[in-house]
């Protein structure tokens, strides 16, 4: 498996650490309420199809990267710096 880091280019999977769903980037406001926080901390989608994950280019440039992939076809659809995906 290869992942294209926006800085470093296409790299081997062994250079990356997997974090999980990219929902970390959509942190609710402190006063968003119990339900929003419960969803954020505990609930995850489990889609058959497109999903967005956070990966860390640990054995590389040290950037957090949003990787869009398809869980059915295993196709990697695109990558983006998490710092840019958020702003």
């Amino acid at each position, binding site marked *: 498996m290869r992942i294209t880091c926006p800085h470093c280019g296409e790299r081997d999977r062994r250079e990356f650490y997997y974090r999980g769903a990219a929902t970390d980037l959509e942190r609710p406001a402190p006063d968003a309420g119990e339900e929003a926080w419960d969803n954020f901390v505990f609930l995850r989608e489990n889609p058959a199809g497109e999903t967005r994950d956070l990966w860390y280019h640990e054995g590389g*440039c040290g950037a957090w990267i949003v990787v869009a992939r398809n869980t059915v076809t295993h196709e990697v659809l695109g990558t983006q710096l998490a710092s840019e995906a958020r702003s």
Partner: protein
Amino acid sequence: MDKLIAKSPCEGLLPLTVGSVTLTEEEPGVMTSVAPYKGCEEALSEALKAAHGMGYPAANRATGRAGSRAVWFGHGQAMLIGPVPDATLSEHAAIVDQSDAWAVVRLEGEGAEDVLARLVPVDLRAAHFKRGHTVRSLLFHMTASITRVGDTAFQIMVFRSMAETLVHDLKTAMEGVAARG
């Protein structure tokens, strides 16, 4: 207090020659990580040029020359190697002294690319990776910075605490390449 004796990271381990490849320790001098503040990369590059004669390096590139280099060092930072950082840099970037924190070695010779091919999961052959190109990648199990500094020469940096592992892993690969003749 007794006078302390300075000891380089690879003291007692290098130099080393196996077949056509040599491994020597570099004396990098002052090492400083330079991390530009948001939106300040251009101003930092001008300040670097004025003070030290090299611009801020683009991703996967190194600027300057032996004795005074700026090596791209990952997301949002470069390593200034050699000169004492000018005070003007700190107007545009976070400046952190990293002297003595890194083991810096030079791998050189006809077979140097073959040695690195055994350890690094990136194509470092000259057609793709030219003088002035740099990568952050893995060297066997260690995170490393690798820069081509000559036609057959690479500068390799790892955390100082991993100096012995670095020399061990490179030596093993050098022996493997040499054994194939």
